[in-house]
């Protein structure tokens, strides 16, 4: 998919995210908006997946280890055709297939249950290891938050992935610099992330997480890296795309009210129109 199409798609995904969280009256818009471009790039450009056959054995896998950003994952899956877009308004509702955090048994296209931070990455390592053990060719993408890197289990997983040389694994860090209680810097910074990844025998690539060219180049580079996993450290903006949500701690886990939702949607409509004129 060409860059402009990806940008347009990501803009649709952002609108979906806001619609989901607005209807749910709870959820995590900030970290969903920051990861929107990354997930759009992966599902529409990089990954070998088939919405008609979500469980096909040789598909690439994605584990959203930062599971609270699942509105972004659901939006991308719906746009990709895994389930009807109309269902997005049922996020977090009783009986919905769209649980507050991803559950593989509920939602077509979700490869792993996640949301308890630090656990998804271990499962992703297990998937990548599994492929190595039986010579399967699929690739595995794990998407983490930078706040999530404070969980010790993440580094247990990194150590094993590095030592086992899992070059079929790409760890993507959505580094938006903000967590629930404040900035990552204030709370317990995992920086420098690239140097830590290198020390754990991962190949680090730092990119702008909102630039599709840079993201694409990083994922291409990852395919050529042999003998170790790749860590794509994506610098992002929390709340990206909605002016009043950008870089605001308060939008980590708060849903917009009607007025805020309408204002946000208006901004995104304008951004979409601007993309159409390019």
């Amino acid at each position: 998919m060409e860059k402009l199409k990806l940008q347009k798609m990501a803009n649709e995904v952002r609108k979906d995210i806001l619609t989901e969280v607005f209807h749910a009256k709870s959820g995590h818009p900030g970290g969903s908006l920051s990861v929107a471009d990354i997930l759009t790039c992966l599902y529409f450009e990089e990954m070998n997946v088939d919405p008609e056959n979500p469980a096909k054995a040789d598909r690439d896998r994605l584990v959203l280890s930062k599971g609270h950003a699942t509105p972004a994952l659901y939006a991308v899956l719906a746009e990709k055709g895994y389930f009807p877009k109309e269902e997005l308004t049922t996020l977090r509702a009783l009986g919905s297939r769209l649980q507050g955090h991803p559950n593989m048994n509920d939602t077509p296209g979700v490869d792993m249950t996640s949301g308890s931070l630090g656990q998804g990455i271990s499962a992703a390592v297990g998937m990548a290891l599994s492929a190595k053990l039986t010579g399967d060719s699929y690739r595995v993408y794990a998407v983490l938050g930078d706040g999530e890197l404070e969980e010790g289990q993440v580094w247990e997983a990194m150590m094993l992935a590095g030592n086992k040389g899992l070059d079929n694994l790409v760890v993507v860090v959505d580094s938006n610099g903000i967590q629930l209680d404040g900035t990552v810097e204030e709370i317990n910074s995992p920086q420098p992330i690239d140097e830590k990844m290198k020390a754990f025998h991962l190949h680090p690539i730092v990119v702008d997480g909102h630039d599709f060219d840079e993201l694409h180049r990083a994922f291409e580079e990852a395919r050529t890296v042999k003998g170790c996993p790749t860590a794509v450290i994506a610098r992002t903006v929390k709340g990206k795309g909605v002016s009043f949500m950008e870089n605001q701690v308060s939008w980590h886990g708060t849903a917009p009210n009607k007025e805020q939702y309408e204002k946000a949607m208006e901004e995104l409509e304008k951004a979409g129109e601007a993309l159409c004129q390019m």
Partner: protein
Amino acid sequence: MSDVKKIATRDSYGNALAELGKEHDDLYVLDADLAAATKTVTFKKAFPDRHIDCGIAEGNMVGVAAGMATTGKVPFVSTFAMFLAGRSYEQVRNSIGYPHLNVKLGATHAGISVGPDGATHQCNEDIALMRTIPGMTIINPSDDVEARAAVKAAYEMDGPVYMRFGRLAVPVINDNPDYHFELGKGVTLKDGTDVTIVATGLEVAASLEAAEMLEKEGISARVINIHTIKPIDEELLVKAAKETGKIVTVEEHSIIGGLGGAVCEVLAEQAPVPVKRLGIRDEFGESGVAEELLKKHGLDGEGIFRSVKSWLGR
């Protein structure tokens, strides 16, 4: 029972894995730097390519197993009960239990019979923890024969299974041609009319001993082996309660939330009768030789005999 053959169920676990590994290519074993102790080293020698040592990082190992299970492999996760049910409780709950993944948890060194390592390594709480996870099957085999059968049954069923094994060599009591292991079915090993002793794990052999001693005192004790703690054999328990009127539970585990808890939950709702729970009371363990510790907590044949006799007022 001094000349009876004794085998630790952790050895049974390692041997059963090595046997099953011959038949099933999709069986993988994960360990956390304890292969020599959990006895998965037996499997490792036979199938080095299917044995993954994850290092001393149990929470991650559980997650890795979950990921492997999503791709169709059948991982047996192996470490001490303390680090599997205890340290990794939340990983087991969220990464295996909630998505109901086909991961088998082989927990060795359970209970106070760990012995000299002391309280930090004596997990008397694992059954209670695992019981609270929806859809988790829990097996606590009584001897070598049952342990090997349990591993096979765990492989053959789809879904998460927690298996509890011990470090201490325990008497082989099921080595007979009629032995048949059926998940979820308790086994009446001795009939009786005055009281029913419901035991699990290594306490089954000790309870049989106690029952023999009670018999000599004119007390007729039924003995039931509950190898599957979840789902528990409600029918057999209710029948025993109705027929004998009194129940004693015996386990090498806290009396809170383990077999005693499970039995009380069933009986309180379906056939309320007096129940005496024998096990580790609300306390931590300590260093000591396994047999001495079991004796101290009244969990040897003699101790069970005395407790039952005294409880019955005889």
